[in-house]
């Protein structure tokens, strides 16, 4: 008797394990994959979400979607885009829920895109939503789009499941900056008072393809002062910023010099950047130390890279090119925009807490005058899988 009671009690606990009032079925959820926030008239915002479509719900695809290829996987769209307007994100979300028959869930959303107008108007208030909502992931990436943000969600990239996934993968490849919500919050509250977010735009579709059958790509970096966007730097300058922020992982550096009569490309294998702040006789200085290591991937000159002297010359060119990238970035961001997106303020604060507190309020004036010295140690690890330059008779290859 006792055993029967015990066994039935154990079975009954299963009823409790299903989550009581908060039981949710997957088929009652609308999983948001990416979200876009645009500014509308009269201080209102428009929230657009890209919702994952389960395979059984996918239709036959939109007509004219590139004929044979038939759009994305499985012959139908993988996602659905819906938008709604509201006073703030939460309000727009409530309106949005009125259009979507399933409960909107943020747990899977890994991409948030601000429209350019929103970014210029300020993003403080929006970031609070990300932090307060228990489902939003702090590891999700944040972007600024050129123009309207919702159009980024609307495109149907052929190679990935949805457009949010495309830019997230791009950030993970480190071809541009990757800024998570946590990074964004840290920058917003940081001492420097500046934020850098990667920008996205849509590739223009190839000839003959449907206008939606294209993909977003990283398009430079948006620079913010406080929480307002003040400008954009190019992809090239972004490289320099990434060098300074020690975020370079995957770079190909191409050097073109008169001396070589051609161009040489190196692929970055390893790179680290160290910032060392210094205050000498009241002058604020930042010493940047870069260590880069790369392999040769293309040699368009007649020089034989196996020769140590020639490799040494190439190393120097490699080094100069990196230096050039750093200087370009510094010129634009430090001198022109006067935005401390490199985290110089934190570095000074960490090393010189006392002096820092004296200039804290005038940092905007001090920062552009910080003297930056750059020290680069570039090293070419190997000339790749080839020795002599290809396609040139051996006697024409220069050994020196």
């Amino acid at each position: 008797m006792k055993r029967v009671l015990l066994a039935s009690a154990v079975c009954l606990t299963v009823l409790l394990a299903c989550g009581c009032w908060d039981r949710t079925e997957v088929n009652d959820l609308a999983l948001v994959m990416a979200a876009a926030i645009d500014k509308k008239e009269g201080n209102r915002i428009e929230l657009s979400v890209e919702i994952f479509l389960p395979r059984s719900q996918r239709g036959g695809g939109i007509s004219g979607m590139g004929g044979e290829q038939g759009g994305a996987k499985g012959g139908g769209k993988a996602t659905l885009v819906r938008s709604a307007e509201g006073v703030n994100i939460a309000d727009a979300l409530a309106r949005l829920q009125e259009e979507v028959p399933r409960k909107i869930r943020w747990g899977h959303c890994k991409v948030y895109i601000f429209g350019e107008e929103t970014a210029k108007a300020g993003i403080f208030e929006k970031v609070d939503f990300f932090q307060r909502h228990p489902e939003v992931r702090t590891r999700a990436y944040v972007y600024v789009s050129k123009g309207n943000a919702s159009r980024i969600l609307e495109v149907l990239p052929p190679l990935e499941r949805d457009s949010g996934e495309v830019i997230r993968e791009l950030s993970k490849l480190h071809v541009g900056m990757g800024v998570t919500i946590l990074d964004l919050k840290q920058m917003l509250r940081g001492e420097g008072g500046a934020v850098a977010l990667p920008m996205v735009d849509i590739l223009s579709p190839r000839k003959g393809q449907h206008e939606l059958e294209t993909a977003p790509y990283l398009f430079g970096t948006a620079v913010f002062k406080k929480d307002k966007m003040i400008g954009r730097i190019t992809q090239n300058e972004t490289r320099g910023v990434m060098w300074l922020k020690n975020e370079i992982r995957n770079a190909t550096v191409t050097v073109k010099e008169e001396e070589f009569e051609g161009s040489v490309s190196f692929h970055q294998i390893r790179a680290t950047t160290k910032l060392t702040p210094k205050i000498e006789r009241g002058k604020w200085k930042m010493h940047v130390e870069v260590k880069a290591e790369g392999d040769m991937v293309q040699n368009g000159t007649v020089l034989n890279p196996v020769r140590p002297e020639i490799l040494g010359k190439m190393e120097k060119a490699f080094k100069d090119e990196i230096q050039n990238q750093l200087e370009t970035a510094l010129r634009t961001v430090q001198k022109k925009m006067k935005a401390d997106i490199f985290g110089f303020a934190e570095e000074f604060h960490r090393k010189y807490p006392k002096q820092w507190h004296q200039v804290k309020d005038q940092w905007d004036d001090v920062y552009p005058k910080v003297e930056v010295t750059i020290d680069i140690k570039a090293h070419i690890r190997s000339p790749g899988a080839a020795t002599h330059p290809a396609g040139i008779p051996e006697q024409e290859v220069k050994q020196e």
Partner: protein
Amino acid sequence: MIEKGKISSLHLAMMMYPTILGTAVLVLPGMMAKYAKNDLWLSSILASLAGFLTVYIASRLHRLFPKETIIQYSQRILGTFAGKTLGFIYLFFYVHLTGIITREYADFIISMFLPLTPISVVITSMLLVAAMAVWGGVEVVGRTAVVFFPVFTIPLVFFVILVYTDLNPRNLLPVMEHGIIPVIKGALMPETWFSEFFLMSFFLPMLTDSEKGMKWGMASVTGVALTMVLINLVTLFLLGQEITTFTYPLMEVARYISIADFFENLQSVVMMLWVLGAFVKISVFFYAVALGTGQWLNLSDYRPLVLPLGFLVFLFSLWDLPNLSVLAHFQEKVGPYYLTSIQIVIPLLLLLIAVVRRRSRKAKEADRR
């Protein structure tokens, strides 16, 4: 003695560890960082001194009255009336505290995982399970704690390994930017957690090897302090100054983990930690309340009291705190005085009185001879 069961001092140490950390892991880093900023790890080391002191007081009192708990020896030290009054204060204090802890547990579950579930359901289910453990006696409470000990500690270590690549140790600098004062301020709150080590005085009479009680108690304080430092450093290295903006920083650490794009969303592991830790904590507090009430009323068994006391705890958890802000205010502004005075200051005074009395008695006996 009411309790016939016995536990070893190692069990006691393993029981106290989750009892202190159970609720500390999630909320403490944020609260400490509010005052100590990036020196919060120093604060937890400073606060652990309170833990060592508490263990010392509890063990000294135990040595003077080896078979009794504070409910009983307070009567011997202060006389029946004053002793009973003090005993009542203690019982009230622990019922109140158990209620607060239960509420803290339930608030996290409600706000993070089960927003639609009524809070009374979450509280009741936890209290019923804890009541069952208390009903089973000290051996059940102790053994469940021992079983849960590795389940509680191993995930913490895993978090550190998994989130390692995202950590930025430079967040530690500058150390003690504003001097020692913020560190002391930051230590006030964790100190209340460490003062809860006084609960071990209820278990010391049941040890099979009570002479090792103090040693293992100290070991437990050390373990708790080290774990707190570890958690503080991990949250600091990952979140930086942002620590203060999160209600549950460790939760953010777990959510931030992402290995190869598929091993992610580990918040359920945090939930497991929280439920296990809270269970051990609540059952230990509950046990102390039940046993103490039995001793206070001179009963031969405390078991009939378990359910009524559970109901009382339930009411305290619901009525005392309307929301999370009040709870945070209580922990910040009231807790340091309330918990410290009852769990450190009063026992210290009792110890002093007992020692002085014993000395004078011995002196008189010597005079008589």
